[in-house]
């Protein structure tokens, strides 16, 4: 890392996360001036996009090479009042909360009080959503049976393909015009809607070019006033880059990176989509530019590294927009889930690892930043040296990169009906979600609390935490004569709540289709332009909606406990067991010890437990998969938690696996924390009992102590462990390499461990930034040590 990068990195790390009123004020001014008949909805959104890019402050940070900030300064984070309005109380909470806080200064608070709140109160998309949800949906939501991803953020979860490296905005706008010309006003009843959408896209394409030119002007002005001759030249060169891209296709590495960054800013300015935006297969996309620059002497390897490092810092300057309420609980982090993909295979199926892959891995290790997140795609085509290199970064203990199975992802995607080439161009984004990059809108809709459903089943449809009837009467479990009867009741409850969730999803999807189109994002995802249809209306070539299953390990262990103790050993009756749960195990240490130590548990390659995992997974899969959404997407499942296992745990009482009331649940497809006693191969074998290929992603956490990675031989064994898991179609695995002692010390002396980054779920976070429960939970995850 050279001096420039060191300085930029320090600036980024030290920048305080704060709320900026800039976007909120611009959006309000725009809508206030708008007359209702003026534009169709898509054009209105496009004009707003243009208005923001025309009027927002241009920020060029001292010494940087890649330019552009979403707010007026690094980490100055905008809000999206048309989606979700922050109240003064919200601002107070954001400013004052201990974790994931955002400073709110007096001026910002005033702007909210005087301008933003008075205009938007009752008019946001969130208001629209909650007005339209059924009572059953609201009750289930309040009970913590599921969460709703789109209540404070827009659908996104998408990744860019290679389009911008081939085409400038001029060519893309040309595509838009061609599509307009092809509209058939005789036979296509939707031709007018398409025309409006395409008009909106064209406005957005031109707006981004204008935004880049504003940067060029500012850079020229800075160059004129710059005393340092070196920097002066640099600023001039940067201005030239901003005049060329995004208008035209990039011709150098610098232009390619700057182009992507403008597009990234556009996507996260248009709305606040989940997972921000993502360049995807960076080592593939950038390789031709890198090689060309080197061949022509435009750049040397050190120069390329410097540019990439500057690019990395831009991501770290952009925390996730502020979340409140349940959304903050399910995803409580600054991370905005941009997940860089490295390795994997090329479009033709050959090994995708190249020299830039290794350079990017160096960048990840050296930058050691929260954002962007990074992963390696591991195919059997990739060399071991590549995986070893990634394992050596994991060894440094900041949870990145995570490991994904390219060959399984391709099977998942083609199994969903995608073309093989589109599948090979894909990968994973967000935490672990499989997708076809540049061609798919795969939208996560919310977490689904499988544990809560079993709890409600055990209480004949009543939520024991509130005493309210929430589900149908499926029978008094004390009267169940067989384990099968319990399973049947569970499936009925499951379908009941999935029906509610999906009815809500379908409404929310329509709300976004009608009121919140994203014509800018639609420019980049095929075939939105060709179809003249917005990303949020089903314009992408492939459309998928996910419900994320939560608590597989916990619910498996609950079923195993009930099966073992009530039905098999008959050591306790169901009625007594339920009383013990109501007492939160008080005075029942012996039973609890037997549940914790002597009952078959998921994660130990023990069929007595694992068959329940398979059964629950299949029941959940069958309840969701294959249903259709209004935009023509197919519902599917994936298994990942972010931080919802903490939130979902808080709404569940004591459970038959020995867990106390309100404690966290298991996360992803990992075993209940600390319950895997037979080492990592047993955990992986248990995890393989579910069919990963039927999902759009599973998340598995493993924790190792640092001494496990002590030499090259041990590192290779981790590589082999990963390979073996992947040979059986495991989707993903990630490692926390830090000793429990270190984590304990960090709790006691947070000041000494301010750089301690740990793997949480599908992302890493600062250990100090985590809530106490999550800290405890991470410490409890089993540490595997070699013998």
């Amino acid at each position, binding site marked *: 890392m050279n001096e420039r990068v060191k300085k930029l990195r320090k600036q980024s790390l030290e920048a305080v996360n704060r709320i900026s009123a800039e976007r909120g004020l611009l959006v309000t001014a725009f809508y206030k001036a708008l007359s209702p008949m003026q534009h169709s909805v898509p054009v209105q959104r496009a004009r707003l996009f243009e208005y923001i890019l025309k009027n927002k402050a241009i920020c060029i940070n001292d010494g940087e090479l890649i330019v552009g900030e979403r707010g007026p300064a690094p980490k100055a984070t905008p809000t999206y009042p048309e989606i979700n309005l922050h109240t003064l109380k919200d601002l107070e909470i954001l400013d004052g909360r201990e974790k994931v806080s955002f400073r709110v200064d007096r001026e910002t608070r005033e702007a909210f009080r005087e301008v933003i709140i008075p205009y938007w109160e009752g008019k946001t998309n969130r208001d629209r959503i909650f007005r339209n949800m059924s009572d059953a949906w609201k009750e289930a939501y309040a009970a913590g049976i599921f969460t709703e991803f789109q209540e404070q953020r827009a659908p996104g979860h998408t990744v860019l393909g290679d389009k911008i490296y081939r085409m400038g905005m001029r060519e893309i706008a040309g595509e838009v015009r061609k599509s307009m010309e092809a509209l058939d006003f005789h036979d296509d009843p939707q031709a007018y809607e398409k025309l409006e959408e395409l008009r909106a896209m064209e406005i957005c394409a031109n707006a981004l070019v204008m935004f880049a030119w504003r940067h060029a002007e500012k850079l020229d002005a800075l160059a004129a006033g710059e005393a340092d001759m070196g920097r002066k030249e640099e600023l001039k060169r940067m201005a030239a880059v901003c005049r060329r891209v995004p208008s035209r296709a990039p011709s150098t590495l610098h232009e390619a990176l700057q182009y992507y960054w403008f597009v990234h800013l556009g996507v996260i300015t248009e709305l606040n989509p989940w997972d921000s935006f993502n360049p995807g297969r960076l080592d593939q996309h950038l390789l031709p530019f890198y090689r060309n620059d080197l061949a022509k002497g435009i750049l040397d390897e050190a120069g390329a590294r410097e540019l990439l490092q500057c690019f990395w810092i831009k991501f770290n300057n952009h925390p996730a927009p502020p979340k409140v309420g349940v959304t903050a609980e399910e995803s409580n982090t600054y991370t905005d889930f941009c997940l860089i993909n490295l390795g994997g295979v090329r479009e033709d199926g050959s090994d995708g690892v190249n020299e830039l892959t290794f350079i990017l891995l160096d960048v990840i290790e050296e930058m050691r930043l929260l954002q962007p997140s990074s992963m390696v795609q591991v195919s059997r085509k990739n060399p071991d040296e590549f995986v070893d290199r990634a394992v050596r970064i994991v060894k440094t203990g900041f949870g990145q990169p995570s490991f994904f199975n390219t060959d399984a992802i391709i099977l998942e995607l083609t199994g969903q009906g995608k073309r093989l080439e589109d599948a090979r161009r894909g990968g994973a984004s967000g935490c672990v979600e499989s997708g076809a990059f540049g061609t798919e809108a795969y939208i996560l809709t919310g977490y689904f609390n499988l544990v809560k459903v079993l709890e409600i089943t055990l209480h004949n449809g009543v939520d024991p935490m509130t005493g309210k009837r929430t589900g149908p009467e499926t029978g008094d479990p004390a009267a169940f004569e067989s384990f099968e009867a319990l399973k049947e009741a569970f499936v009925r409850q499951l379908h009941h709540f999935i029906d509610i969730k999906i009815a809500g999803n379908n409404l929310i999807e329509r709300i976004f289709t009608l009121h919140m189109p994203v014509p800018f994002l639609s420019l980049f995802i095929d075939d939105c332009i060709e179809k003249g249809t917005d990303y949020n209306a089903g314009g992408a070539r492939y459309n998928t909606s996910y419900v994320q299953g939560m608590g597989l390990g916990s619910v498996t262990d609950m079923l195993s406990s009930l099966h073992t103790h009530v039905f098999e050993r008959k050591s306790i009756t169901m009625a007594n067991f339920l009383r013990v749960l109501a007492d939160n195990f008080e005075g029942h*240490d*012996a039973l*609890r*010890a037997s549940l*914790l*130590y002597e009952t078959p548990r998921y994660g130990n*390659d023990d069929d007595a437990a694992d068959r329940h995992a398979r059964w629950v997974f299949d029941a959940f899969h069958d309840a969701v998969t294959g249903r259709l959404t209004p935009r023509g997407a197919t519902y599917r499942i994936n298994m990942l938690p972010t931080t919802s296992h903490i939130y979902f745990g808080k709404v569940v009482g004591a459970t038959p696996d020995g867990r106390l009331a309100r404690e966290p649940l298991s996360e992803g497809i990992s075993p209940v924390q600390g319950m895997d006693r*037979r*080492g*990592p*191969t*047993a955990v992986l*074998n248990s995890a393989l009992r579910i069919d990963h290929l039927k999902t759009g992603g599973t998340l598995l956490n493993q924790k190792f102590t640092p001494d496990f990675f002590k030499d090259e031989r*041990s590192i*290779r*064994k981790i590589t*082999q*462990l990963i*390979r*073996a898991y992947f*040979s*059986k179609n495991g989707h993903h695995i990630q490692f926390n390499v830090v000793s429990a002692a270190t984590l304990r010390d960090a709790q006691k002396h947070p000041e000494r461990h301010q750089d301690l980054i740990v793997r949480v779920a599908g992302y890493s976070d600062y250990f100090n930034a985590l809530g106490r429960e999550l800290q405890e939970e991470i410490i409890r995850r089993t540490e*595997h040590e*070699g*013998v």
Partner: protein
Amino acid sequence: MQIATIFDIKRFAVHDGPGIRTTVFFKGCPLRCWWCHNPESQLPEPETVEIERKVDGRRVPARRTYGEQVGTAELMEIILRDRHYYAESGGGVTFSGGEPLMQPEALSELLRACRKAKLHTCVDTCGHVVATDFERILDDTDLFLYDLKHMDPLLHLKYTGTGNGLILSNADRLLEAGARVIFRIPVIPGINTSDEETGRMISFLEERSDRCREVHLLPYHRIAGQKYSRLGKTIRLPEVKEPGRKMMETLQKRFEQTGLEVLIGG
């Protein structure tokens, strides 16, 4: 079918031979090493002891049995569960203990089954066993991990309860029969780390360097006293410090001067 008495199965064992392995620990050992980490491995029969389970810091009394009698077919089933990890890593199965050759019938049956399943096999032995038992398993064992604890017969007797005559003659027998052997030396400061002792070990290895090229130095780890007291046993080892990294590296260098490949840890 034979029944084996085992006290543990360790999966993802990465220090007991090449690759990722499953190690099966047989119960029963002819030696009584002062530094033994697994006192529960010594007696050949299962032992039940009183223990305490912890639940939120509170203690719940419970019983625990060390040692389980398992049929070889069931053991093979467990072993085969991880065969894709062995295949990926060039790993396999290690039979350790205790002393696996204390149960030669069960061991040879397991090794034959492994051979049939094309698994790499490894036997971790103290060497103090009937010579003909080695011959029975020779064909089905890919690698022997062979412990050398002390070269002085009297000190060996003092610290392990037996002399080393049989151990050393069995070692030569194995080498002569063409078996692949890696010698493993537990490094216990003050017990087998004197200059003189190290010299004796080195000359033993040098004399056999045409048939054995590899040696592992296993640093001593402090013993868990709790296990001893639970079993009603007392630790005989006086306060011994764990060998530091520097000491291990110095030793490694000395052994390497003979041209052997020397590994710290397994």
